[in-house]
């Protein structure tokens, strides 16, 4: 039987329940836990991109008062192999990327550790490195799968080449996105404390159980002897989903010195050690008939990974399900480079992929003489073109229409470079957004005492998104009590196991487990105790395993983003005075936190469109603009009016709450909407992000 929630707390704009703790500083982050006798570890990073460490001279470092140990491959304990070869910290003398850990100093203070690290003299045998991604490399390879095995590498339906050859209108364009770094505000930080029972890590991450399992495996510990605490996390954006080398290093330092150890990466270290989004080179070919109906979509992607660990981003995946076309093809090819290991970042796949697809759709609309909204409506599929399944719900057209009205889209003169306001050319653009609605297994425990106070325990993680608040709201409705009666416990691997704060799946997965636990508790209470809580209280567990309807329906959130831009006629500076995002993402649990999350996503999309790019120095294999002075991120002055709204969408196929997830869809499509608006304003199509003024200057 399908569970139907009666919603009271769900849908209310509740203030963040963790808000007061955060603004008063009471909420402790990983680095802030006071630990008796704590020491500090500071890494030494390789200055070459490929080669071997020949010698490590640590005498000067060891002579510094306060230094406890210098670790390197010469004296490190042996680790058990784990799936990620990057985590084999100090297990050999090999260097696979610039910035890799080659040694580390543990000292009584962080200052001493840092100074001593600078005194460690490392000699290398350098080998030639290969760090530049190009589409014409002859060593591109086809990964076995993409997105950790979640998707097929390539897909092919029909005959794309023939359809393109016979299309009335066709388009063949290459779009590029640069390397981008996740850059959460809170740096990656760990505090490691050994005790007789095992090790406790106060760690900044997006899923304590995921960190626990990897640490336990690497250090050959039973998982129950590893405890990970991550109650408050200052952003992750994908870079804290999985263990990175600094966590291994901190545990190793604590093991080697038998002292508690703290580490917080510096911003500069984060540019080599905790991942980034691969640069992408995307060839997009579209074929259409004279009415703008797509006959062919081909999306061929080239991206990079590292030599020691494969990360294959699913960039072309959205082109598999967005639009109806009888002939479709997607491919992903990788170059294995002597570069740091990429990772998952802010809507991996959809975000860069939809920049290409939605830019190409805008170019096609111009080629067909059609309004870009009309072009998308004409190509709206009735079923998922890839799986052949019906959509559980698909709100794209509703979002486009609602957005057009709200934005004042029509009447729009499609003529480029035709509007001027003083020294500024103006233009508008639109693009679609999408992100899959998915769920990961989760378990939860609900307890009630005689006074009617509920405790909900689940290893969910709030990375700043509002999970503390929305899970409380879901639990309140599932238990049919006011939210004040519910006390939530999350962010601790000692709590019932649950999945990552990632894939926009947190609320759906954790919420489902909480609903099931609440339902079990209510059943027990009524069937076993006649509705009266026994003196010792009562508890019940609930789990969510899989959604059987995921095999019957294609489940995605959709959206439409609109941008107004101004481009200075003399300097070609780009300004974005107005953004609008309209989303169809199922039920919105909390309009206040949801608005913030979507607004944040769109702001990151603006940042991607205009600013963000990690600049490679190929001589060293290093990203050189590795701080916030030189890696530009949109600031308040760059952001104009951002209007965020959503349509009411009831979809109970996705889960009992009807939520599709809003963690990532906000960033998908923004960059294309802005690029399309820049093209409308200037007549110049930028296919290579970010849209900086040098690309627009004549």
């Amino acid at each position, binding site marked *: 039987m399908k569970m139907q929630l009666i919603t009271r707390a769900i849908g209310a704009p509740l203030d963040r329940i963790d808000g007061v703790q955060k603004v008063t500083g009471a909420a402790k982050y990983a680095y802030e836990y006071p630990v008796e006798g704590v020491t500090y570890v500071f890494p030494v990073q390789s200055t070459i991109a490929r080669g071997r460490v020949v010698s490590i001279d640590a005498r000067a470092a060891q002579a510094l008062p306060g230094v406890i140990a210098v670790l390197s491959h010469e004296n490190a304990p042996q680790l058990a192999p784990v799936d990620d070869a990057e985590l084999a910290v100090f297990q050999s003398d090999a260097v696979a990327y610039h910035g890799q850990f080659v040694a580390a100093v543990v000292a009584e203070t962080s200052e001493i550790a840092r100074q001593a690290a600078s005194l460690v003299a490392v000699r290398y045998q350098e080998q030639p490195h290969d760090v530049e991604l190009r589409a014409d490399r002859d060593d591109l390879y086809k990964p076995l799968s993409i997105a950790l095995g979640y998707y097929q590498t390539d897909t092919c339906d029909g005959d794309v080449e023939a359809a393109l050859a016979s299309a009335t209108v066709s388009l063949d364009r290459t779009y590029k996105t640069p390397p981008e770094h996740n850059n959460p505000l809170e740096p990656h930080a760990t505090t490691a404390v050994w005790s007789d029972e095992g090790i406790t890590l106060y760690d900044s991450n997006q899923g304590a159980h995921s960190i626990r399992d990897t640490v336990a495996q690497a250090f050959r510990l039973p998982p129950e002897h590893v405890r990970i605490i991550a109650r408050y996390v200052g952003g992750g954006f994908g870079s804290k989903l999985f263990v990175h080398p600094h966590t291994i290093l901190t545990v190793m330092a604590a093991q080697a010195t038998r002292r508690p150890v703290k580490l917080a990466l510096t911003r500069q270290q984060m540019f080599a050690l905790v991942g980034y989004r691969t640069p992408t080179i995307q060839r997009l070919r579209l074929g259409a008939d004279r009415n703008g109906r797509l006959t062919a979509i081909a999306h061929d992607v080239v991206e990079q990974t590292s030599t020691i660990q494969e990360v294959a981003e699913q960039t072309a995946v959205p082109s598999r399900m967005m639009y109806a076309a009888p002939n479709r093809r997607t491919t992903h090819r990788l170059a294995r480079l002597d570069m740091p290991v990429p990772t998952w970042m802010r809507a991996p796949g959809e975000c860069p992929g939809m920049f290409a697809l939605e830019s190409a759709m805008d170019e096609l609309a111009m080629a067909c003489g059609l309004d870009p909204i009309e072009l998308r409506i004409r190509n709206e599929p009735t079923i998922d073109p890839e799986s052949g399944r019906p959509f559980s719900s698909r709100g794209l057209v509703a979002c486009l229409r609602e957005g057009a009205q709200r934005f004042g889209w029509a009447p729009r003169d499609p003529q480029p470079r035709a509007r001027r306001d003083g*020294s500024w050319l103006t233009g508008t653009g639109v693009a679609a957004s999408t992100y899959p609605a998915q769920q990961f297994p989760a378990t939860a425990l609900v307890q009630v005492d005689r006074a009617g106070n509920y405790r909900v325990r689940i290893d969910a993680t709030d990375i700043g998104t509002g999970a503390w608040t929305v899970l409380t709201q879901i639990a309140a409705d599932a238990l049919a009590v006011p939210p004040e009666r519910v006390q939530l416990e999350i962010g601790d691997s000692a709590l019932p196991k649950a999945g990552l704060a990632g894939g926009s799946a947190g609320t759906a997965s954790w919420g489902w487990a909480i609903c099931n636990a609440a339902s079990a508790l209510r059943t027990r209470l009524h069937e076993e105790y006649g509705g009266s809580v026994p003196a010792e209280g009562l508890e019940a567990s609930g789990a969510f395993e899989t959604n059987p309807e995921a095999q019957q329906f294609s489940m995605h959130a959709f959206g439409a983003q609109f941008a107004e831009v101004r481009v200075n006629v*003399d*300097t*070609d500076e780009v300004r974005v005075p107005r953004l609008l995002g309209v989303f169809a993402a199922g039920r919105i649990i909390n309009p206040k936190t949801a608005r913030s999350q979507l607004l944040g996503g769109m702001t990151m999309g603006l940042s991607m469109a205009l600013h963000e790019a990690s600049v490679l120095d190929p001589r060293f294999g290093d990203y050189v603009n590795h701080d916030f002075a030189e890696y530009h991120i949109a600031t308040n002055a760059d952001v104009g009016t951002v209007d965020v709204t959503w349509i009411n969408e009831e979809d109970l196929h996705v889960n009992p709450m009807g939520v599709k997830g809003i963690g990532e869809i906000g960033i998908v499509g923004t960059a294309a909407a802005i690029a399309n608006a820049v093209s409308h304003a200037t007549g110049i199509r930028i296919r290579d992000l970010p849209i900086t*003024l*040098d690309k627009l*200057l*004549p």
Partner: protein
Amino acid sequence: MDLEITLRVNGATHRLSVGTRTTLLDALRERFGGVAPVPWRAARAEAALRGAAATGEVFGRAAEAELANAQPLPGNAFKVPLARHTLVRTLLDLTEEEEKQR
């Protein structure tokens, strides 16, 4: 004899006292920010402007004179046209502002 004049540059008001025999262009001191490690005094442009008429064409020639010897690198070549456009626009804005004040 001196004359008080008011200039608005990038939205900020500047009051100057200059001799009446001094043209506006004589009094200009062009500096580019952000194109060099220190503000770049555009002495060649100033020389080209001194005593010349305040027209867009003259400004364009002054900018060309200033930038004729620029040797940009691949990553900063855009700064040459950017500097040219910015200088011309700034001078046009200034002189148009002065026209309005009369």
